[in-house]
């Protein structure tokens, strides 16, 4: 149920290359003067990991080509049904990344800030538990360790099962 006069711009890229957040923000808002709010999240590779704060020298992101695109496209559609968005864009990288490198970007645009904030947060929480990516971290000895899923991520996603205040649809 979109409150926008024109259809929301939906866009997804699953890629090895880095991305330019500034350029992505401009592309999603150019000429859309109904947009009053832009929310953006970027996930970066951290140099430490896990409960023991082990040092990470690199990370390789494996993914399931095809399923990734299918799951993330469905997620973008869900967000656009639940909130009145003008635009929604996800970029997720795969391959070998170094600390400080960008992994993922979500941008949502809307007339008002609540829809932009909530949908961006929703997309990140869902993406964390539904997009088929797996992180292999390398320590200083070049030893690879598969990152374990975090229970907090399941809890964070489950929060959205309740209808949001701005959710107009009835289940």
């Amino acid at each position, binding site marked *: 149920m979109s409150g926008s006069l024109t259809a929301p711009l939906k866009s997804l890229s699953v890629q090895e290359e880095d991305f330019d957040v500034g350029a992505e923000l401009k592309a999603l808002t150019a000429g859309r003067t109904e947009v009053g709010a832009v929310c953006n999240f970027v996930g970066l590779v951290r140099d430490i990991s896990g409960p023991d704060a082990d040092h990470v020298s690199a990370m390789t992101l494996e993914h399931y080509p095809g*399923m990734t695109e299918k799951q993330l496209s469905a997620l973008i559609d869900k967000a656009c049904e639940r909130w009145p968005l003008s635009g929604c864009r996800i970029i997720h990288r795969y391959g070998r990344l170094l600390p400080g490198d960008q992994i993922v970007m979500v941008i949502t645009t809307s007339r008002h800030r609540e829809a932009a904030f909530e949908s961006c947060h929703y997309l990140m929480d869902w993406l964390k538990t539904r997009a088929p990516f797996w992180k292999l971290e390398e320590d200083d000895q070049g030893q690879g360790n598969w990152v374990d899923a975090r229970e907090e991520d399941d809890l964070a996603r489950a929060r959205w099962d309740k209808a949001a205040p701005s959710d107009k649809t009835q289940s």
Partner: protein
Amino acid sequence: MKILYFAWVRSTIGKGMDQLDGKPEGVQTVADLLDWLSGQGEGYSKALEKRDRIRVAINQDFAEPDATLNDGDEVALFPPVTGG
């Protein structure tokens, strides 16, 4: 039926894919398939040892253990996802 493996499921089994001629005999559900695969050698039995650490997709959608399989399905086995 195509079966794909990812992350440590892939590295423990030692390959990324198995191509089967339809469903194995007696296999109707996801749980049946995991039982059957466990008997296919050391890598398989080790990878599927802790069944609660395995997630399954059928035709690129998440599936529960009781989901029914069809001959031409693309099935994938992998650990809980850790993207984002």
